[in-house]
C-alpha cells in the first residue's frame, strides 16, 4: 500500500472483490424481464394515441376497458396457478362460458341469486377437479385442464344445444353492464377491486406465501411440512372463481350468453400474466403486474382491430408475444446464472 494511494473508486472495487461481492452491471434482459412492461405499456399507449386514428376517443377507451375487464378478472385469478409453477389453467375457456350461460339462463328461469349460487358451485367443482388432479395425483396441469376444457364445453353445449341466451332488456344485469363512471365501466372497477383483494391474498396471507414458495421449490415446501396438495387446490379454486366472475362480467356487458363466447380467453389471460412479468417457471410474480399486462394485451388487440387486422393476426401476435416474453425471462435467468 506504500507509494501511490489508491483512488476512492479503486478502493471500493477492491473492497467489493475482497468481500466476494460481484459488481452488478446493467443487464438488458434482466431489466426487460423485470421492468420492461412499464415502459412497453406506456410506449404502446403513446404510439397508439399518436398514430392510430380513433384510439384516443372516449368511446374507444371505454370499449377497451369493457373488453379488458373480463379477461383481466380471469387473468388475475389464473396468476396464482402460474405462480405455483403449474403453467396455466386452460379450462377457463369452459368456465367463463359456463358462468355466463348459467347467469343469464338460470336468472331468466328463477332468480339472480340462484344463478350466482349455482355458478359458484360449478366454479368450486372446476377448482376441485383441476386442483386434486394436479395437486394430489401429480398430473400435468396442461393435460388435466385440456381434458376438463373438453368435458366442460361438451357438457355446456350438450345442455344448451349451442343456443344463445338473452337477458331481460331491463334488470340488474343489464344495468350493471351499461353503468359507467366517467370513462370507466363498472366492470373495470370490479376488476380493480378484485386485483387489490387478490394482491393482498398473494402478498399478505399465509396462503399467498405458500403459493410462491411452492412455485419456487415444491420439494422444499413439502419438506417444511406444508400440505402442498391444498396449496395447488387453493390456486385452482382462485382461478376458477376468477373465471366465474369474468363470465358474469362478460355476460353483463353483452346481456347475452352462448357457449362459444369465451374463445381465446385462455391465451389472452396467459399472455397478460406472462407479459406482466410473472414467471412461468413459478415462484415469482404479482397480481398488480398482471393488471398491467392486461392493459398491454388489450391495447395491442385494440390497435390491431382499429388497423383492420383480423382474428388470425391477433392470434399470431399474442402467440408470438407469449413466446417472446417467456424467452426474455428464460434468457435473463440464464444470463444471471453465468
Amino acid at each position, binding site marked *: 500500500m506504500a507509494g501511490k494511494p489508491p483512488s476512492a473508486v479503486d478502493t471500493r472495487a477492491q473492497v467489493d472483490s475482497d468481500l466476494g461481492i460481484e459488481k452488478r452491471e446493467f443487464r438488458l434482459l434482466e431489466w426487460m424481464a423485470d421492468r420492461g412492461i412499464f415502459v412497453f405499456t406506456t410506449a404502446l399507449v403513446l404510439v397508439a394515441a399518436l398514430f392510430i386514428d380513433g384510439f384516443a376517443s372516449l368511446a374507444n377507451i371505454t370499449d377497451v376497458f369493457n373488453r379488458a375487464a373480463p379477461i383481466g378478472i380471469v387473468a388475475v385469478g389464473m396468476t396464482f396457478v402460474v405462480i405455483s409453477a403449474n403453467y396455466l389453467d386452460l379450462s377457463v375457456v369452459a368456465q367463463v362460458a359456463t358462468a355466463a350461460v348459467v347467469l343469464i339462463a338460470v336468472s331468466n328461469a328463477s332468480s339472480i341469486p340462484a344463478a350466482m349460487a349455482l355458478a359458484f358451485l360449478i366454479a368450486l367443482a372446476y377448482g376441485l377437479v383441476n386442483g386434486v388432479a394436479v395437486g394430489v*395425483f401429480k398430473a400435468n396441469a396442461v393435460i388435466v385442464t385440456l381434458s376438463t376444457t373438453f368435458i366442460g*364445453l361438451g357438457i355446456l353445449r350438450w345442455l344448451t344445444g349451442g343456443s344463445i341466451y338473452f337477458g331481460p332488456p331491463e334488470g340488474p344485469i343489464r344495468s350493471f353492464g351499461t353503468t359507467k363512471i366517467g370513462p370507466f365501466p363498472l366492470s373495470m372497477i370490479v376488476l380493480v377491486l378484485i386485483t387489490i383483494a387478490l394482491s393482498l391474498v398473494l402478498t399478505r396471507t399465509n396462503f399467498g406465501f405458500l403459493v410462491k414458495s411452492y412455485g419456487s421449490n415444491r420439494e422444499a415446501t413439502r419438506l417444511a411440512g406444508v400440505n402442498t396438495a391444498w396449496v395447488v387446490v387453493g390456486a385452482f379454486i382462485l382461478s376458477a372463481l376468477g373465471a366465474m366472475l369474468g363470465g358474469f362480467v362478460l355476460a353483463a356487458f353483452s346481456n347475452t350468453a352462448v357457449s362459444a363466447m369465451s374463445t381465446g380467453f385462455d391465451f389472452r389471460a396467459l399472455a397478460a400474466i406472462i407479459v406482466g412479468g410473472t414467471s412461468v417457471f413459478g415462484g415469482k410474480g404479482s397480481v398488480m403486474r398482471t393488471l398491467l399486462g392486461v392493459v398491454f394485451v388489450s391495447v395491442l388487440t385494440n390497435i390491431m382491430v382499429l388497423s383492420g387486422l383480423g382474428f388470425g393476426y391477433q392470434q399470431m401476435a399474442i402467440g408470438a408475444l407469449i413466446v417472446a416474453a*417467456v424467452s426474455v425471462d428464460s434468457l435473463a435467468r440464464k444470463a444471471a446464472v453465468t
Partner: protein
Amino acid sequence: MSQRPGITLGETRSGFVGRLRTTLARRTEGRALALFFVVATVTWIMEPIVFTSYQVTLGRIALIGLVALGLTAVILMGELDLAVASTLAVAGVVMASIDNLALGIIAALLTGLLIGVVNAFFVVVVGINSFIATLGMLFFLRGAAFVISGEEPVRLANIDAGIAFGKPFIGDLTPRVLLFIVAFIAIQLFVTRVRVGREFYAVGGNREAAYDAGIPVRRRIFTGFMISGFVAALAGVINTLERTAADPTAGSTVLLASFAAAIIGGILLTGGRGSVFGTLLGATSLGILQVALTLSGVQVDVQNIIIGLVLLLAVISDPTTLRVVLGNARAFIQGRSEIQPEG
C-alpha cells in the same frame, strides 16, 4: 462383453412364469390393453357393425393415431408438442394454397419440419419449457393458418387426386390407413432398432446421464420435434386430400384425441418410458369408441365429454405413481403434509 459378474438388469426370476412376470412388469401397455378389451367387448355386443364395416373404423384410428405417433417420439424425451394441432392446420392450408399438387405436398411437409425446428429452438437454445413454448406456437400457428387462408376453407385445385385418395388402394385399405401403418412401422423400428431412436429413451430417462454418456441431447431433441412436426404435417396433407379442402380450424379435436391415445398407451409424460405399440393400442381403442358412439347416434359434444374423461382418468392413473398418489391422497384428506416422495 460376456464377463459382467454381479450385474443384473432388473429383477431376475427363474422359470418361465417368473420370466413372463418380469417381462409383463416391464411393459407399459397395461391400461391401453384393458381399455381396448373393454371397448372392443362392449362394442362387439352393442354395435357389431363397427367391426363388420372395418374400413370406417380403420380410417378413424388412422386419423387419431397418426398425430399420436409423432407425439410419442417427443414425449419419450420428456418434452411435449402442443403445437401439433395447429401444425396440421397450417400444413393443410399451405398445401391447398399451392396449385401444383406435388409441390404443395412437399411445401406442407417442409413446413412441418420447419415448425419442428422452431419448437426445438425455443426448447433447446432459449431454454423455455416445451409446454409453454409449444403452447405459444399453438396460438401463433392457428393465427397463421387463418391469415394464410384468409379465414376461409381453401379448396384444393386438384380435386381428382383427392377423390382418388379416398378410394381403396391395396385390398380394402385406403392410402390413409396404409400411410398410418407405414408411419407406425417406421417409428416403431426407429425407437427400438435404430441407435438414434433408442437414445430418445435415454434422453427422457435421465438427461444429465445421457449427456455424460456422450449422447448429443440437443440434437436428439431437435430430431424428436422434427419428427412430430413432420408427422403432424403429413396428417394435415392427408386430411386436405380426403376433404379436397383445407380448413384453418382443423385439428382442435385432434389435439385431445392424440394426447389421449399417447397417454393411455402408457407413455410417461416425464419421459423415458412408453412404447409406440402402446400408442397404437390407445389410438385403436379411442377409434373404436368414437365410431361406436357415432353409430349409436351420440352427439359430438357427448363424445368430447367421454374422450375428455378418458384422458383425465389416464393422466391421473399412472400405475407407477399410483402408490405414491394413494399416500398423498390419504395425507390430503387427513390434512397432513405428504410423507412419501413425489413420483
